[in-house]
């Protein structure tokens, strides 16, 4: 009795852990730090493929058919080669058109057909039922197996409902699914919690399989070879080592079915397509997932043989060997672990399947039907999101109950693998419609309806009905003699086709009718509606840049449309979504028709494409006369090709990014520049392509352009193999008609060469200027060499003059002129005899006259030297006074250069402050008094004021070291 409670307690505790993982993942997602955004988690979540069928059923199958069980895993491995070419396309289509279910996908591809969406949904529900029963059966058997321990005989399930553990398990699973799968409405139908929980349980079931495998091989036997040796000794057992006759056909059939199932089972579609976060994860999953399959199957054969050897007399169901082997050796903890692995495999499968199916039932079946028959008054009722959730929650419960009923009273007697294969065959019926649909534009709505319903009918007849007959709900003669004794209609030998196993037989007929009907009707009856045409083009050409062709009239009120969306999605998200429009589709709302298309897509994300079309049609009229879709398509394609040709043949790099920085459009030059293909770049950001520092800068510039609102020019650098390149980028925001920016266009020209020559030019210019300055300094020295007392005088005058010029706000060029002029303002003194220059007494008048000639002489020396500044004039006029009392020409006020006026004042101040042969230094204060006294008489008042300011506010002092 204690053991029973331990089993139940541990089972519930484990389900609690799964709740915890899911809850944690959702919290992380809400905080913006998703834990599922990586290829490993993605691959593990795909491993929801491995259900209890894999976990328990594989061993059971291996005991009777040897290697055959493996075909179910070889199929997906082969298919994984095609994931990158095919699955990526499906994912892209679904993301572009907001498709969240298989029914939505097929219906949307074939002209948003309501008939198809209903057909696929019903088919999925019926087709998946045996599979759900299988999980419940496996859990129930494993629980009973544990509870009956140490009795090794597999018991029959208990008769009374409330004492059947499987019933409670089904209820708990329904609760789990509702909490994490149908609690709120997400426009993308993402369920991070479920994905994380599935990834977690995938890990658990893998570890448990490996653990029991290692235990059997090395605990119960002496390695794998030991098991095979012992098996060889048992008579007839070695037939399991080989294949022959019909085995090959069955092997190929199962390989094919599983290759289809891995992509088109509703739960696989949910995990691989809808929950896909990043297309690049597909690439990694293409080998990680097969590796997972490889590992989980590694020990199946040894376990199977070990089971046969250990329980030779039957009585123990081979489907429970995984559990019975450790139990029979009294390894209770290991058995418990194995049981948990199986429990979680079942929980994950049921949760994901019922989410996928309930979304389908609500979006693709109930809502569109209610709308069509007016049960739902879209225009009256306020908020529908609650209804949608309720529909889903009820669906989940119904699915689980149906699965339970099916397991208890219909297919409970079948083996796990048989039940699974029937569901696989159902999923394979979707394959032709989807695979042809994304590569061939010719497939039409009518063809799809014919093919699918035909396939569905044959599947029901050859696979499902015989099930009922086997479990006693139909007379067994139905199988053996055909309905009403018509032997040509025997479900396992339809039209007298004998020699096939039931599976190959059913798959052959159903797919023959399916593919044949689809192709023939598609070829005979072409697209009836323009929607059919457009959808076919949009799906097949999904990797071409998006084209817009609206099939809606634009005489409607936008507010009606918004109100409609609010009813389904709530007010707050709709506001956000309308503003997101530009970001998601990088288009401008040029016509109202585009907006309707967009609204329809958004709605499709939540309630499915068929419902969305009906809902939108309630506020907007469909265009009655549509431009011939072919010509419209062609003209758009033509203008696109023209634009592309222009863009690709320019030597500038052109990019268009959305406001989030994802590349939308690029030209060939840019793709050459970063050495990546167009496809690789589109959808990425700078951070995926460039080092972080560069990307930061680019982003910064983009933001600036967006804030400015008009084109800005920036220089951006990028590393090429041949070194750093500089680009002159013109960036400007692009607006939609409501003046909301939706992207940043950048046109970048490689100006590396220009930069280089500019740099060289600047360098040689600097060198020349330096040479010129050096020359002038040398001349100044030459003058000063003769006149000891004036040594450094010119330099100090230059220093003060520059300070004054700067204080007065002269231009840099003028200041440079002032400096040069001041540096050699006394150059004329070279002409004076040294005695006069160094005479320690007052000069005679004649001598003074001679001294006065130095400005004239200076001018003569300099006048023919071509300099960029009026240096000769400055030297010439530096003793002129504004009242005309100066020399040599007695110029007045406006005839004197401002530069000369400055040098004049600086000269006087420096001369008076410094020591002179004929008098000792008078000091700065005296000098300042002198210029203040003659301010406006000799000296320009502005210059004097500037000079006084410099000294009074102690901004300026002569640099002492120049006195040396």
């Amino acid at each position, binding site marked *: 009795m204690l053991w029973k409670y331990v089993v139940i307690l541990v089972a519930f505790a484990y389900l609690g852990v799964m709740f915890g993982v899911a809850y944690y993942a959702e919290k992380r997602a809400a905080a913006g730090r998703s834990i599922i955004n990586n290829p490993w988690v993605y691959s593990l979540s795909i491993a929801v493929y491995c259900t209890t069928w894999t976990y328990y059923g594989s061993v059971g199958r291996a005991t009777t058919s040897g290697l055959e069980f493996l075909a179910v895993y*070889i199929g997906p491995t082969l298919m994984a080669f095609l994931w990158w070419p095919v699955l990526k396309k499906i994912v892209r289509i679904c993301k572009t058109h907001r498709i969240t279910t298989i029914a939505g996908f097929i219906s949307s591809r074939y002209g948003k057909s309501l008939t198809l969406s209903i057909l696929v949904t019903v088919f999925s529900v019926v087709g998946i039922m045996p599979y759900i029963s299988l999980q419940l059966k496996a859990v129930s058997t494993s629980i009973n197996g544990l509870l009956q321990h140490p009795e090794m005989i597999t018991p029959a399930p208990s008769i009374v409902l409330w004492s059947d553990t499987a019933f409670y398990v089904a209820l708990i699973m329904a609760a789990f699914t509702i909490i994490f799968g149908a609690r709120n409405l997400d426009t993308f139908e993402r369920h991070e919690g479920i994905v994380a929980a599935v990834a977690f349980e995938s890990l658990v079931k893998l570890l448990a399989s490996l653990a029991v495998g290692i235990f059997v091989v090395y605990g119960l036997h002496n390695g794998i070879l030991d098991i*095979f040796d012992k098996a060889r000794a048992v008579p007839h057992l070695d037939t399991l080592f080989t294949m022959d006759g019909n085995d090959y056909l069955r092997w190929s059939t199962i390989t094919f079915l599983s290759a289809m199932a891995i992509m088109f089972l509703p739960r696989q579609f949910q995990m691989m397509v809808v929950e896909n976060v990043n297309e690049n994860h597909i690439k990694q999953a293409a080998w990680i997932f097969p590796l997972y399959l*490889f590992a989980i199957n590694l020990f199946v054969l040894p376990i199977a043989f070990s089971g046969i050897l250990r329980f030779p007399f039957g009585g123990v169901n081979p489907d429970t060997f995984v559990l019975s082997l450790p139990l029979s050796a009294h390894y209770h903890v290991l058995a418990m672990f194995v049981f948990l692995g199986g429990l979680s495999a079942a929980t994950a499968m049921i949760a994901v399947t019922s989410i996928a199916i309930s979304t389908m039932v609500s979006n693709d079946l109930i809502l569109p039907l209610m709308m069509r028959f007016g049960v739902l008054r879209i225009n009256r009722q306020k908020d529908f999101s609650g209804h949608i959730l309720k529909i889903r929650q009820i669906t989940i419960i119904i699915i689980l109950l149906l699965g339970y009923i099916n397991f208890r009273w219909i297919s409970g007697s079948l083996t796990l693998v048989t039940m699974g294969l029937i569901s696989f065959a159902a999923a394979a019926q979707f394959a032709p419609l989807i695979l042809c649909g994304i590569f061939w534009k010719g497939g039409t709505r009518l063809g799809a309806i014919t093919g699918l319903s035909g396939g569905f009918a044959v599947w029901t007849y050859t696979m499902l009905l015989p099930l009922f007959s086997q479990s006693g709900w139909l007379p067994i003669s139905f199988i053996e003699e055909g309905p009403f004794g018509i032997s040509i209609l025997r479900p396992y030998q339809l039209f007298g086709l004998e020699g096939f196993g039931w599976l190959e037989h059913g798959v052959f007929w159903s797919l023959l009718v399916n593919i044949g009907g689809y192709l023939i009707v598609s070829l005979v009856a072409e697209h009836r509606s323009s929607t059919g045409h457009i959808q076919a083009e949009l799906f097949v050409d999904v990797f071409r840049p998006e084209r817009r062709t609206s099939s809606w009239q634009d005489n409607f009120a936008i507010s009606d449309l918004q109100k409609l969306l609010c009813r389904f999605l709530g007010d707050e998200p709709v506001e956000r979504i309308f503003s997101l429009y530009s970001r998601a589709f990088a288009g401008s709302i040029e016509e109202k028709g585009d907006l309707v298309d967009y609204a329809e897509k958004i709605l499709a994300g939540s309630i499915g494409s068929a419902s969305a079309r009906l809902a939108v049609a309630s506020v907007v009229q469909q265009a009655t006369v549509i431009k011939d879709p072919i010509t419209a398509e062609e003209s758009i394609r033509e203008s696109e090709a023209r634009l592309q040709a222009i863009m690709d043949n320019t030597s500038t790099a052109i990019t268009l990014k959305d406001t989030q920085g994802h590349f939308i459009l690029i030209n060939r030059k840019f793709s050459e520049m970063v050495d990546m293909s167009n496809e*690789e770049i589109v959808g990425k950001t700078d951070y995926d392509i460039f*080092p972080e520092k560069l990307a930061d800068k680019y982003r910064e510039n983009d933001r600036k352009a967006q804030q400015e609102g008009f084109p800005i020019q920036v220089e951006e650098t990028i590393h090429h193999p041949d070194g750093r390149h500089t680009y002159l980028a013109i960036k400007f925001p692009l607006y939609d008609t409501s003046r909301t920016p939706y992207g940043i266009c950048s046109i970048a020209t490689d100006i590396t060469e220009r930069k280089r020559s500019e740099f060289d030019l600047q360098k040689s210019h600097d060198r020349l200027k330096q040479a010129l300055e050096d020359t002038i300094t040398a001349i100044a020295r030459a003058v000063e060499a003769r006149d000891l007392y004036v040594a450094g005088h010119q330099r100090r005058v230059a220093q003060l003059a520059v300070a004054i010029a700067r204080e007065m706000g002269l231009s840099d060029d003028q200041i440079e002129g002032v400096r040069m002029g001041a540096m050699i303002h006394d150059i004329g003194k070279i002409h004076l005899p040294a005695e006069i220059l160094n005479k320690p007494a007052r000069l005679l008048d004649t001598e003074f006259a001679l001294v006065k000639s130095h400005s004239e002489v200076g001018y003569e020396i300099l006048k023919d030297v071509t300099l960029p500044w009026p240096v000769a004039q400055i030297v010439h006029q530096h003793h002129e006074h504004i009242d005309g009392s100066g020399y040599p020409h007695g110029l007045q006020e406006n005839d004197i250069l401002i530069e000369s006026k400055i040098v004049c004042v600086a000269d006087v101040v420096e001369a008076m402050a410094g020591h002179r042969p004929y008098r000792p230094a008078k000091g700065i204060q005296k000098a300042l008094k002198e210029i203040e006294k003659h301010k406006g008489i000799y000296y320009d008042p502005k210059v004097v004021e500037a000079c006084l300011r410099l000294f009074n506010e102690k901004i300026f002092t002569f640099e002492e070291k120049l006195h040396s």
Partner: protein
Amino acid sequence: MDSEKQKNSRLIIFFFIGVILLNYPILSLFSDNERNVFGIPLLYAFVFTTWALLIFITALTVRYTGNKTSQHTDKAQ
């Protein structure tokens, strides 16, 4: 674009090679009770080895075919 096409065509070729290797009649060549590989039945050994090889090839193809991109970003950094 070209590297992408190259990757896709390689994957498709490997897909067909895998389909042929793991089906009749190739399988029947290994379905032989008399022979075994180190004690493991020949058919089992063949299927598991081929399977492992296929996975290995997929990994190599998605990782290294035409993947100039990753090398480029490495260089840039």
